[in-house]
């Protein structure tokens, strides 16, 4: 019926299509479409990124904390430790058997486990890989930890203990 017409009509469609490829209008259209596509992608991806990154941003603002006041911590018994959060990361306040006061980050410098004060062995120990730190200085004594624990300044008041960044 109309077969020949159809088959002949193919090149008729193709040829102007090919030629049009180089005309400025077509190039402009592709450019505008690409720019609009990028805008849409940005408008979708940016809110999603910020949404997913919210907790990280909140932790970062918590990390800006300069000092923490621990109410009633001055009553901490000798040879014991108090675990607390300095910003978003765990920290420990140690009241030594010799009545000394020190505070360290409680994050093991090896792989980030939370460390434990063991007064009977006079050490800070990480049970993940057996790292040992000195409980007076925070220095890495044995095991895998590459660095000492970060130390904080301690001020013991009448009703509280204030721990601040060194």
């Amino acid at each position: 019926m109309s077969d020949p017409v159809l088959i002949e009509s193919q090149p008729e469609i193709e040829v102007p299509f090919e030629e049009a490829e180089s005309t400025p209008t077509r190039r402009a259209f592709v450019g505008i479409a690409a720019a609009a596509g990028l805008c849409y992608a940005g408008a979708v991806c940016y809110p999603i990124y910020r949404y997913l990154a919210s907790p990280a941003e909140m932790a970062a603002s918590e990390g800006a904390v300069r000092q923490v006041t621990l109410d009633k911590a001055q009553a901490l018994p000798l040879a014991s430790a108090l675990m607390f959060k300095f910003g978003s990361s765990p920290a420990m306040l140690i009241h030594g058997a010799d009545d000394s006061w020190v505070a360290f980050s409680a994050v093991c410098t090896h792989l980030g486990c939370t460390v434990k004060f063991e007064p009977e062995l006079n050490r800070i120990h990480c049970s993940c890989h057996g790292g040992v730190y000195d409980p007076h200085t925070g220095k890495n004594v044995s095991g895998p930890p590459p660095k000492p624990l970060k130390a904080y300044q301690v001020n013991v008041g009448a009703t509280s203990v204030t721990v601040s960044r060194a």
Partner: protein
Amino acid sequence: MSGAVDSEPAVDVSEGIAARALSSQDKPHAENSQKGTGTIESVYEWIDERLGLGEVIALARHKRIPVHSQSFWYYWGGISLFLFVIQIFTGILLLVYYRPGAEAFESVRQITYVMHFGWLIRSAHSWCANLFMFSILVHMFSVYFMKAYRKPREVGWLTGIALLFFAAMFGFSGYLLPMDELSYYATKVGLQIPASIPFMGAFTTTILRGGPEVSDFTVQRFFALHVVILPLLFIPLLGLHLFLVQKHGNAVPPSEEAKPLAARKSIPFFPNFFQKDLAMWLISLNVLALLASIFPWDLGRQADSLVPAPAGIHPEWYFMAPFHMLKILGNWLPGATGEVVGILLFTTGLAIWVVIPFYDGENKTGTRGRNAHYFGLFAVAALIITTALGYWGIR
């Protein structure tokens, strides 16, 4: 739109002609791929050899979409699909921070007011749910009035109705999840519909609710329903629904069917119709973006069973019709009789709606076709009037 359609190479739907036209299209492509030694060609060949891309492309080329005065309605299935995909994405994003159970309200408060753009994602999810319901209803009624349910498309119709039912369940279960005052009372009130099922209503409702009252248990199980059970049922069913569309192609309305084959027009699905589909999706995305950002979805006060219900508690608009029909019949026939009669009437109407392809299954105009058409008009009128009355009552 018709202007754009006319400019396409309109082709007779006769199979033989379509096939010959296609083979002439295939040749230049084959030559190109033989000549081409570039990376893109070799990547294409690598994938084609393993996944059979060529067959998919050939299938896409064969697929044609009829062109006639009612072609506009063909977009609504695609729009629904697009909105459903948005629901999956925004739903997954909400899942990142949502906590069901006792902390439900607090976690939604956090999403809305603490997390960056959380309000936007929640608002998009809520608005998209409404647009999705709207678009599948338009899709359903257009299928109904174009008589696209007729032989051999009965299963497409049945799966579509099931998908609508699951979509309504998605809406109902999702509405409770923020656990604010409005969602709490809307769920309490909405559970009146399953509760009025004769004989097993009370039992079903208690199981669904997880106890005698809407509580943390209800939120927990509605959450399981919303994010696990319903997607598990919905997605395979949607796959079957889409497969059937692919298998049978688009139905044409009786007015078009009356024309001889040679007088009917069609365009290739790919790329011609697909481009228009994309344009529709872009419009839908823009509408959604405007609604979600200009009218951000509200979060009320935390649900508290000791605080009296605020005025004007009502279900979502797509539940308004059955809810209000129950109310009207409850006023006419006091007590349990009204509820039972209401649910029986509604169920009968729904049953007729579901089995309509088996009543009006023949492709010819006759009494049955006309009756089905009038029943459709009656159903639309009943839904619109009861919905309007429902909103009038709470105004």
